[in-house]
């Protein structure tokens, strides 16, 4: 459905995307993960025909995005990062205008508008001016316009950015539903977000693809180590650290830098200690056991998610 071959994009002398190749097959839901400025939006804009590649080829449903740009665009539903809405139109007017510029006939438009509004659950707002909608509803209107013309391929740039957590969950569900009938490419800079929706993840960093895998494999690959935050009371911080270091699966133990500052002069430690441990070796259990054996008090034991920066650092170092 989407095929990207040796795609390069420069902005002036500055390369934004370097030799990116991938393929998204019919019916796939692919997450496009990367930090801000990695080249996600640029790649998506090139697929949609907004920006032509500096070199390389992009085809959508078999149509070259440059040579047969109009034909390729017909097969794409696109939701850019800033949801493009005409604020002084009602939801229905907006959708009908979008239908018209995509060359749909009036009958088809009317039919689809009703279906699409039901689908994104905007029924109560169909005659509301878009400018008066909340951010989450604007997002839905944006999604509605993207699926209006029954495109084969849906491309969404950060579809859950800037909306409240409840609506994020709803939007995610909506996207998963859409995945049943569309080929989907979704960008995000949040790993759990992508792994919740997408069976396959492309990771892009500094304009290059650094990983293309299932989220499960990806996290295995990433987490040669896992990080755990432990709050312990009942002993001096230094002695706790030295005892924890002796546990088999533990690689490194250090106190949180904040903890050190506050802890000075105190006998006991209530503040978090950070433990890096090997995965799949029951590190958490071992730590808990050690705490009990030493008669300390356990305040908390929390696995810490790795930050995106660390993930990319690891992925790029692997290569």
């Amino acid at each position, binding site marked *: 459905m989407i095929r990207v071959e040796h795609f390069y994009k420069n*902005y*002036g002398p500055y390369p934004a995307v370097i030799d990116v190749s991938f393929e998204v097959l019919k019916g796939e839901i692919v997450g496009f993960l990367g930090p801000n400025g990695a080249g996600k939006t640029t790649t998506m*804009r090139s697929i*949609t*025909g*907004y*920006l*032509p590649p500096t070199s390389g080829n992009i085809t959508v449903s078999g149509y070259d995005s440059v040579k047969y740009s*109009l*034909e390729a*665009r*017909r097969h*794409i539903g*696109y939701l*850019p990062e*800033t*949801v*493009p*809405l*005409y*604020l*002084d*139109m009602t939801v229905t007017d907006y959708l009908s*205008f*979008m239908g018209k*510029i*995509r*060359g749909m006939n009036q009958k088809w438009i009317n039919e689809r508008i009703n279906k699409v509004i039901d689908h994104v659950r905007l029924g109560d707002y169909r005659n509301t001016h878009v400018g008066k909608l909340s951010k989450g509803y604007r997002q839905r209107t944006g999604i509605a*316009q993207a699926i209006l013309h029954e495109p084969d391929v849906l491309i969404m740039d950060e579809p859950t950015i800037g909306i409240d957590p409840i609506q994020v969950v709803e939007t995610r569900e909506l996207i998963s539903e859409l995945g049943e009938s569309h080929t989907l490419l979704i960008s995000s800079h949040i790993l759990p977000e992508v792994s919740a929706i997408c069976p396959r993840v492309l990771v892009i960093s500094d304009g290059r693809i650094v990983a293309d895998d299932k989220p499960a494999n990806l996290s295995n690959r990433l987490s040669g180590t896992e990080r755990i935050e432990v709050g312990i009371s009942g002993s001096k911080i230094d002695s706790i650290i030295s005892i924890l270091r002796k546990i088999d699966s533990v690689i490194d133990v250090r106190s949180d830098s904040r903890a050190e500052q506050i802890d000075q002069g105190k006998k006991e430690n209530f503040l978090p200690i950070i433990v890096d441990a090997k995965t799949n070796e029951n590190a958490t259990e071992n730590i808990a056991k050690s705490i009990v054996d030493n008669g300390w008090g356990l305040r908390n034991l929390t696995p810490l998610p790795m930050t995106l920066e660390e993930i990319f650092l690891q992925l790029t170092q692997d290569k």
Partner: protein
Amino acid sequence: MKEIKTYFASPMAYIVSASYLAITGFFFVASVSDAFSEATIRGYLAGATFFMIFMSPAITMRLIAEEQKLGTLELLLTSPVKEVEVVVGKFLASLVTVIIMIIFSLYFVVLLYIFGDPDSGPLFNGIFGLLLYSSATLAIGLFASSLSPNQIVGLIVGSGILTSLTIIDFISDRVTGVGSDILSFLQLGASFSVFDLGSLGVAESGHFADFSRGVFSLVDVVFYLSVTIVFLLLTIVILESRRWR
């Protein structure tokens, strides 16, 4: 079309057309209310061409600038629509808006026929010329709108270009030779003799002069159409320029 609908859904259109009617009405009345005055619309045309310098950019300023600001330009340009179609569509929408305003102001003409015996030739020629002149100014306004996501920039640049092209005869009068000819050829419309309320004739120079005198001049028709086309092409080039960046 979306644009026309939004024009009349916002107060902007009413403000612009009301002031258009007021200003052109003033010039019309001033030009025919003297004793023994001619039954012409030359006063109206003088006012109209002058006011168009500000009105056209005011109408067009939002057309592309706002799309850029809202991000909808990205949507338009990723739809199966060509840049040409976007630009021409917006231009036509603004032209229709102006035509509607001109039609409203035609009661001047009706008044002339009721109370006088106007010469139909110059009259229809003048209105035809006004349409051509409007399309040229709208194309320039649209071009100005494409330059920045900020509407005010579009308004100022558009009025700036139009003003320069209008007062260009001040300069061409002061240089000699071919330069003078070229400059005076570029003069878009009314010369600022409209300010000279004593004589209140429009444009004894510039491409509008012949129209208001009732002379159908092919050169002037071609001139206005070329200005329109050149600026629409420039607008398309601006929209496409994102591809080269």
